[in-house]
């Protein structure tokens, strides 16, 4: 519940693979199978939410892909909060992180649509829109994850003192 060190130290670099889950010992597959299952389930939930967002707010052909940008930014903000909470505050069940972090958020956000949409814009002669989208997405995504994690750590530290 209460780590004595600063919150950031106990957060992993790779949120997808939990190093706390041993992968090499005998019977590892029996241990991994539920993890793979909840990642699939979470991925389906996240991708369905992204598909719903795209249906709800369709992007015009040749237009700026705002929906995908907002989806990616939102997913980055949520993982910033989630990883701090799951590492420092909430001793959650071992399947919570693979379900939500790896599955739902990984399935919700997308890298392939980002690059292929950029290519389509550049190819259609919409260089300015394409380059703006190419540059704006990582900028917004990194700002979202960083500010969300920073704010959550502030709250965690404040609650512990």
């Amino acid at each position, binding site marked *: 519940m209460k780590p004595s060190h600063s919150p950031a130290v106990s957060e992993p670099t790779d949120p*997808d693979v939990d190093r706390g889950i041993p992968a090499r010992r005998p019977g590892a597959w029996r241990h991994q199978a539920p993890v793979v299952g909840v990642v699939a389930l979470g991925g389906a939930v*996240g991708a369905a939410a992204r598909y719903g967002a795209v249906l709800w707010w369709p992007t015009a052909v040749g237009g700026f892909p705002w929906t995908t940008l907002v989806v990616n930014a939102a997913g980055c903000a949520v993982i910033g909060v989630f990883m701090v909470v799951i590492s420092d505050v909430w001793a959650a069940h071992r399947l919570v992180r693979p379900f939500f972090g790896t599955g739902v958020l990984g399935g919700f956000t997308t*890298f*392939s649509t980002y690059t292929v949409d950029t*290519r389509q814009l550049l190819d259609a002669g919409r260089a300015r829109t394409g380059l703006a989208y190419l540059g704006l997405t990582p900028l917004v995504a990194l700002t979202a994850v960083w500010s969300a994690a920073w704010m959550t750590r502030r709250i965690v530290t404040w609650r512990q003192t």
Partner: protein
Amino acid sequence: MNWALVITGAALGAPMRYLTDLSVQKRHDTVFPWGTFAVNVAGCLILGLLTGAVTYGAAADSTQLLVGTGFCGALTTYSTFSYETMRLAESGAKFFAAANVVSSIVAGLGAAFIGVTVAQAIWA
């Protein structure tokens, strides 16, 4: 039906990303997030191929939903990519953080271009 295609594709893509990341981490003990890099670039190549195939009438819209929106969308990730970049920067590996952003975007965009070009060569 459309939702079922997206959900099925994603239920395969997300565990594929997890298992790739797991096996990459077992083999390479580096700080650079090669696992996420690999799935993101691979997903861009597949989606590029698929987009080209759809353009030239070689793939149906249902394939686009299953393989594109579902599988490639869940195989690739922006949340893990940006979180890993932030953690690299915070842990002092600022060069790796910057290299991760630049190389992922350059390789991903390159893979998207290659995918569409290959599709064009096959189906146009």
